[in-house]
């Protein structure tokens, strides 16, 4: 027979403690594992002076180049060793270059059937005019999915290391940010005016690069980086109050999650139908149109969103420890 036990006792048992930890009510490590600050050392005038004198003397002795034979010898040896190392490296690399196959020769290892296949059938298979995009988002889409996930995981790691949860009071994110950027020019009129002119064009250009990824050089990664740079410029000019109106940790979470899961589901479908020789039902369209080449355009948008969010999140986390 089970009998009801009071809350206090329940929390002390293993199961109860685990449940409390799961709900986020109690953290068993909080206050137990942190290193407590030691008592400050007492300042002694005499010892401090002795220490200063000793330090001065050591510095004078060590950097007394005129009379310090060992230091002079070491400097000569250092320069000679650096020279020898550099020359050895240069000679090694030059010898390697001499063994490389000649440029443009037909039987180079780079000229195999894979490259020929991409160039010949690329447009037919993927529908993308830009062969590079066709390669990274169609033939090797799984690899690109891994890359996008690497970005997401990197943000998670930085979040673990840099997150500052405290909302108010001493040591909170706002206070720390204010202390760090105490001397930085804030709400600079020139920067604000220039950012007001430039940011829309930068973001528009980023959107153009993403949407034209399958037609012209560019794509998700470069376009996302441009948009992220525009967001960072806006943040630098106007501060966190303005950007937090439209971009918070919640926005980041949802954009990254939906972009990555859409990528995963769409590409899984495509791989499944491709592996079983089924009709996927995704029209390739006419090459050269903006709405063409099947899945490449939506996947480009997903990658661009993830990259832009990652860049902005990195900057915000390093700057303030949260956003």
């Amino acid at each position, binding site marked *: 027979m089970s009998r009801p036990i009071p809350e206090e006792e329940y929390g002390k048992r293993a199961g109860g403690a685990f449940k409390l930890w799961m709900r986020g009510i109690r953290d068993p490590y909080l206050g137990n594992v942190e290193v407590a600050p030691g008592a400050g050392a007492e300042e002694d005038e005499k010892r401090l002076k002795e220490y200063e004198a000793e330090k001065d003397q050591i510095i004078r002795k060590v950097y007394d180049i005129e009379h310090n034979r060992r230091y002079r010898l070491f400097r000569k040896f250092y320069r000679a060793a650096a020279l020898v190392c550099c020359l050895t490296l240069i000679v090694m690399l030059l010898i390697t270059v001499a063994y490389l196959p000649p440029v443009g020769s037909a039987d180079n290892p780079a000229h195999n059937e894979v490259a020929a296949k991409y160039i010949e059938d690329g447009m037919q298979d993927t529908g993308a005019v830009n062969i590079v995009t066709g390669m990274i988002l169609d033939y090797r889409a799984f690899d690109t999915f891994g890359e996008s996930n690497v970005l997401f995981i990197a943000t998670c790691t930085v979040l673990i290391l840099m997150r500052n949860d405290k909302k108010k009071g001493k040591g909170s994110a706002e206070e720390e940010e204010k202390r760090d950027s105490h001397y930085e*020019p804030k709400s600079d009129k020139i920067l604000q005016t220039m950012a007001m002119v430039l940011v829309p064009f930068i973001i528009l250009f980023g959107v153009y690069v993403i949407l034209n990824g399958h037609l012209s050089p560019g794509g998700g990664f470069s376009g996302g980086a441009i948009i992220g740079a525009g967001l960072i410029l806006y943040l630098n000019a106007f501060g966190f109050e303005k950007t937090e109106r439209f971009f918070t940790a919640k926005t980041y979470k949802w954009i990254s999650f939906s972009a990555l899961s859409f990528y995963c589901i769409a590409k899984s479908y495509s791989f499944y139908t491709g592996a079983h020789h089924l009709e996927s039902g995704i029209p390739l369209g006419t090459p050269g149109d903006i709405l063409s080449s099947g899945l490449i355009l939506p996947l480009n948008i997903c990658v661009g969103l993830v990259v832009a969010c990652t860049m902005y999140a990195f900057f915000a986390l390093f700057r303030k420890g949260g956003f």
Partner: protein
Amino acid sequence: MFEWIRFVLGTGLLCIGAVTFLLEIFGVFKFKYVLNRMHVAAMGDTLGIGASLAGLMILFGFRFVTLKLALVLVFLWCASPVSSHLISRLEYTVDEDLEKFCEMKLQNKER
């Protein structure tokens, strides 16, 4: 005749740009103080880029590429002076012995 004028103008401007960049590199490594180095770098980013891109625009003639080059020029002329301004403003607020390096009216300086 027109082709010759265009060629001479374009290459001349390109040469001016290249010389400016050379001076910039020399100056950035020669000067020791922040504001001097900032001035040299900003000069390369505005005058050097301006001359080089103007030369290229003249050499290209009226084409779509020319418009793109003009846009790049406008962007750089907007962005580079602003960043230099921010560096100089930070230096002005942070450096404690600024008077050693440049003359200034002390009564206007708010610390």
